[in-house]
């Protein structure tokens, strides 16, 4: 089951009713949510429920060992190793075993050796990259004594497998989600209306904008980049940036909306990333919860430790984005994408250090940095760089990425992509979403919000009717669910 499957439209109200008509106590509410979460997860592949159950029980037990062994750092470290070995081991096994075997076999062949490793074809457990990171984050927080271990196994199980976020995040910190699950929730009109609005907006973005951009522009350009002219290839990769944003921001909004219906607030995952004027800003606005996880649990411990890595910020950035690339997928194209992001971040950091030096010497540089032309150039460079690096991210293999890049510079292809009315509408929707927080568009949003409730209801109802008719049939899968 997925948020865009029609059965979810029945599953969600049913769980909603069961949740709110029962006694308003924490244990009942969490039991309903946990049971629903296991059905949601099991509907994907019920045998793999055992994996998430095993991980949950192990980490619950180990987190309590941390508390018990308060002064015994040696044993605490051992237990942490066991937990990380299990979590990251299963992640690597399911996600990377095939990739390493194929890469090793290619290496052996290049050396002229006949031997080859068996390549396992494994089913990837739903959302494993997300709930593994959430659990690892919790365990590290417990180990570092940032949070206390969850007292109730029920609360902790729900923290790991809440159906609102188990498939593709947002990845919550224990300090954000656990306290909410540890007390009874109460339904208010604000929870209900903001939840429904987020879900509808997310669905529109994902199933309408994302699908049309993908079908009309992205899939065509990336399936045969050699056949299209240069302009079409530029359009294709720009459309992919918009598609992946619609798909994932849409999914995240649906997750946030779903959680709000149960009076639970999940962290924001996207914050108008295409308004970013620098790469660090972009990564604070794009897939926020993954990036803060990477900085919380890789970058910061690494660069503030007492060891060799201390203050080696460029190396820290390199490691963070290499991990990000690998997290997105077991393929060289994702690794290249991660390395390009790392390079961009390192160049930006050094430029920033240099520019700050100039600012200290001459205040005119401060004024220049605040000027509109500087802002525009920064924005254009940031977005162009980000879009260009998406070529390997979307390409099936390195060879296709190479053809795509060459074609963007000079293509012999004669085919041209035409932007269909639906794709144009999708682009307008994405722009409107970004501009909604800027003047004067914010006034229009407020005007709509202050309109009579019936009128707003009619607009939402018509939007639903149009979605029923116009959403493409292929809109069932999420790009980010596969990571």
């Amino acid at each position: 089951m997925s948020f865009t499957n029609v059965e979810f439209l029945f599953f969600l109200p049913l769980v909603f009713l069961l949740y709110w008509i029962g006694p308003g106590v924490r244990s009942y509410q969490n039991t309903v949510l946990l049971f629903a979460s296991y059905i949601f997860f099991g509907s994907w592949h019920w045998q793999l429920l055992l994996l998430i159950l095993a991980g949950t029980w192990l980490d619950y037990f180990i987190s309590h060992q941390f508390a018990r062994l308060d002064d015994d750092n040696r044993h605490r470290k051992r237990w942490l190793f066991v937990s990380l070995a299990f979590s990251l081991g299963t992640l690597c096994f399911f996600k990377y075993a095939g990739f390493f075997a194929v890469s090793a076999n290619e290496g052996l062949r290049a050396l002229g050796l006949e031997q080859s490793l068996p390549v396992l074809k494994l089913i990837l457990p739903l959302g494993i990259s997300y709930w593994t990171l959430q659990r690892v984050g919790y365990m590290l927080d417990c180990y570092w004594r940032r949070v206390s271990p969850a007292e109730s196994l029920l609360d902790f199980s729900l923290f790991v497998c809440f159906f609102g976020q188990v498939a593709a995040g947002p990845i919550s910190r224990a300090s954000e989600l656990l306290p909410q699950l540890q007390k009874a929730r109460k339904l208010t009109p604000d929870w209900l209306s903001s939840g429904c609005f987020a879900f509808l907006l997310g669905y529109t973005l994902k199933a309408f904008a994302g699908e049309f951009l993908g079908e009309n522009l992205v899939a065509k350009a990336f399936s045969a980049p050699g056949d299209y002219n240069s302009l079409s290839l530029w359009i294709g990769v720009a459309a992919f940036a918009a598609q992946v944003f619609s798909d994932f921001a849409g999914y995240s909004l649906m997750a946030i909306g779903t959680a709000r219906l149960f009076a639970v607030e999940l962290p924001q995952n996207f914050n108008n990333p295409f308004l970013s004027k620098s790469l660090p800003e972009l990564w604070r606005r794009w897939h926020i919860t993954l990036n803060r996880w990477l900085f919380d649990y890789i970058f910061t411990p690494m660069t503030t430790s007492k060891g060799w890595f201390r203050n080696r910020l460029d190396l820290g950035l390199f490691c963070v984005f290499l991990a990000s690339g690998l997290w997105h997928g077991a393929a060289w194209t994702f690794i290249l994408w991660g390395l390009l992001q790392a390079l961009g971040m390192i160049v930006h950091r050094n430029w920033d250090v240099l520019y700050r030096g100039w600012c200290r010497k001459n205040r005119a540089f401060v004024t220049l940095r605040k000027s509109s032309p500087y802002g525009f150039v920064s924005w254009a460079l940031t977005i162009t760089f980000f879009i260009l690096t998406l070529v390997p991210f979307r390409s099936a293999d390195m060879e296709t990425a190479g053809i795509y890049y060459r074609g963007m510079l000079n293509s012999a292809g004669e085919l041209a992509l035409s932007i269909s009315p639906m794709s144009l509408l999708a682009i307008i929707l994405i722009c409107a979403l970004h501009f909604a927080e800027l003047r004067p568009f914010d006034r229009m949003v407020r005007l709509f919000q202050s309109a009579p409730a019936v009128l707003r209801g009619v607009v939402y109802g018509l939007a639903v009717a149009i979605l029923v008719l116009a959403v493409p049939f292929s809109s069932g899968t999420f790009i980010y669910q596969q990571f």
Partner: protein
Amino acid sequence: MKNSWRSIWLLTAGIVFALLAAEIGLRQIHNEPAKLQVMDGLKELQVTPNILAVSSSHGRSFHVLGQELARLSDQSINLTAVALESGKVEAMEWLLHHRLKSLIQDDSGKVLEPLSHLMFGITWWDTCREETSSETTVAANAPNVVTHGWSITDYRNDFLSNGSTDLNRNFVRNRWRQAFSESALVRMRFAIKENFGRFTNFIRVSVLGGLPESESQGLLVRWHDTIDNGHECFLSDRDMQALDRFVAFAKQHELDLTIVLFPLKPDTITAVGLKKTIEPFTEHLFEYGENNDVRILDMTLSLLDDNDFMLDLDHVNPPGNIKWAKAALDGEMSFLLDINKKDVLK
């Protein structure tokens, strides 16, 4: 902005009002009944007919043939048409053995009275497939079997073995579609997909009265290309083996069998397509019929003209169906009117 429970109720009332208005409005402009699918044929088979016609989506034309046959025979001859969307002989044969057989046989395996005739409507396309491993299941090659042919047991077994997959989700999607078949919004959603491909085409046809000439021409060119190259994939081993099983079933149960080579739109067939695909396919089937003692009726180009087909250039439109049924029963299929006289079929 703070919400109150009153504003939530008003908001909900607005949503319900808009959806009802859309539903009522669509009923005014689009009131076509849902297309016949396998499920409809299975329901009809609760009463055993004289003739069972199995076919791809062209089976909807056989439904009209059945109506004409019943009219001409004063309701004494019944034909049940089972139309499997997207066709393919292997998929249709799977349907016969897994879903239809139990409905037309008694517990001892004997075919129920008064069924005496089996019709099988195919085109060259139904035998065309890319090379596939002989180990792959029918369902893996034919999502249409999953969508329209599977029972809940088939789905349950697959789900328990493989979990929820893109393939077995076809079954679930179709069940939802049937559950909401009374909703004009849902019917319209599927009608747009099936008749126009996409929403924008529907808007264009509604506003402009048809697709732009360039797009109709583009579709025709794609059909030319498909049929011109059909010889590269037709008469596939898997489908011809399935045809053997189909024929064996008819013989085993002493059912008279007619294979109908269903009409194609004449202007979709170029001289190349005719020479390389249509004629060799027809010749092969006639030879097959001779070797296996099966009646072959070639109606590919004999009874209908270009105006009798839908915008998709594949399916026969409603007036075309009536024309085809009348012409067929007046000509090569006239023997069906005498089907109750057993010796006629021998």
